[in-house]
């Protein structure tokens, strides 16, 4: 599945739930499947700023593809990171950089989050894109 198809999948999953409490339940469940960051990377260096809860994010390159792992001390935050990781992890840096990530708006998550949480979400996206750009350059150099 490419990124756009994965985004479509998430949108369909979310549309099943009418009540936001159910959407949050779904996010909480998603958080439980988040590929956890290796404890040794849970350092300030991998901490994303702009979040009220602590979020660590790590990316690595394997066979030209970028793989993401993360963790947070807040469960809902874990669910939100999980959404991004599920959609983006396992794709090439170029694919990730081209991702529109429309689904974040479509599922209403951005507007539904409190401003502090929405900022945190933007910071996560920025950090992932930053990793992708660095890896893209690295791949070109090789």
């Amino acid at each position, binding site marked *: 599945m490419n990124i756009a198809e994965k985004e479509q999948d998430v949108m369909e999953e979310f549309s099943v739930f009418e009540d936001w*409490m159910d959407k949050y339940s779904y996010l909480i469940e998603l958080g439980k499947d988040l590929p956890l960051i290796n404890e040794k990377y849970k350092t300030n260096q991998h901490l994303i700023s702009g979040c009220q809860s602590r979020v660590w994010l790590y990316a690595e390159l394997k066979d030209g593809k970028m793989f993401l792992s993360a963790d947070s001390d807040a*469960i809902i935050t874990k669910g939100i990171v999980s959404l991004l990781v599920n959609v983006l992890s396992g794709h090439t840096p170029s694919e990730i950089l081209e991702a529109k990530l429309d689904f974040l708006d479509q599922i209403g998550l951005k507007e539904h989050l*409190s401003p502090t949480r929405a900022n945190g979400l933007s910071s996560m996206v920025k950090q992932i894109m930053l990793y992708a750009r660095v890896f893209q350059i690295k791949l070109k150099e090789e």
Partner: protein
Amino acid sequence: MDLQQIRKDFPILNQQVNGKPLVYLDNAATTQKPLAVIQRISDYYLKENSNVHRGVHHLSQVATEAYENARGYIAKYIHAEESNEIIFTRGTTESINLLANVLSPWIQAGDEIIISGMEHHSNLVPWQQLCERNKARLKVLPVDLDGTLDLNFLEKMLTPQVKLLAIAHISNVLGTVNPVKEIVRIAHNKGVPVLLDGAQGIAHAKVDVQDLGVDFYAFSGHKIYAPMGIGVLYGRFTWLRRLPPYQFGGEMIDQVSFEKTTFNELPYKYEAGTPNVAGALGLEAALHYVQKTGVDDIFNHEDKLLKYATEKLENIDGMRIIGHAKEKAAVLSFLVNGLHPFDLGTLLDQMGIAVRTGHHCAQPLMDFYGIPGTVRASFAMYNTLEEVDIFVDAVKKAVGMLQ
């Protein structure tokens, strides 16, 4: 106290949030405003707006009189000796910064200032910065695990170098009502003046500055049903008269020439620039509303809400209430198991409940308890026992979802 009427007086409470009736339990952050206050502000702009003092025209006199009457009313409300002791500010934070600024010449290298371990950053950072500038030392009166201050320790800390004791009347995190009258007595025995941070105290305790014997008392209007952007620094006349001005400009001057300026009398010495007249009138209206409703009735009601909520929350598995002082007012901080306060707060919001999560501008206190923050429910006169039930059920539901 007619709770139904009170709720009608606060129209903002009658609304839906995320499809659920709003349950507003974030009163320690700011309270809602009754119609009497909204109407007073509106009336001022509809009928009386004009710049105060030094005006000869009718409206200026009307506005000046209203503004000074408000000062007089506030002075009576906290039982100041005279209305000159009431300095209008933007709020508690500005009041404390003002004081830290004008006390600066009195604080020499090697002097000491005492605060407590439960202070809001607003009653910590201004003193820390002052100490840093003047090479003085900031000392911290420790908090016990149950959220109370050890007064025996205070006596030991009051060395001859101590120039000021700055302490919260009521903790915004723990709800502890500090024994401030006793604290003032102990400090005064050693000749140390006392500032009370009354941000929470003004709304949930009786404030009689003469009975307390306190030298300075700072509070914000918006925590007691008045608009944002207005607050008070009470200072005893003998103190304020001696201290230098704070900001310079209009209103606070007596005579100005290019060579020299002499300053106006109290309280104008501390009110440079055009003041927040509507805010002052709103504060007067809010205090009037509180007085009319009945201070004792309000406190009894809030106490009932706090005790009821505490009792019900304690039945939840894994509940940890932060702050167990015997004397507590209107503030209830808690954590459940290892759940992040942010998760709980988000889900409570989904259910229409407004609480605050985080460190509540008291990071050192969070460090003391070794926690990232708390969920804080805080009560006001318009909250009901039914709202507490809704809140507790919502906490249970959120905990169930997160575990």
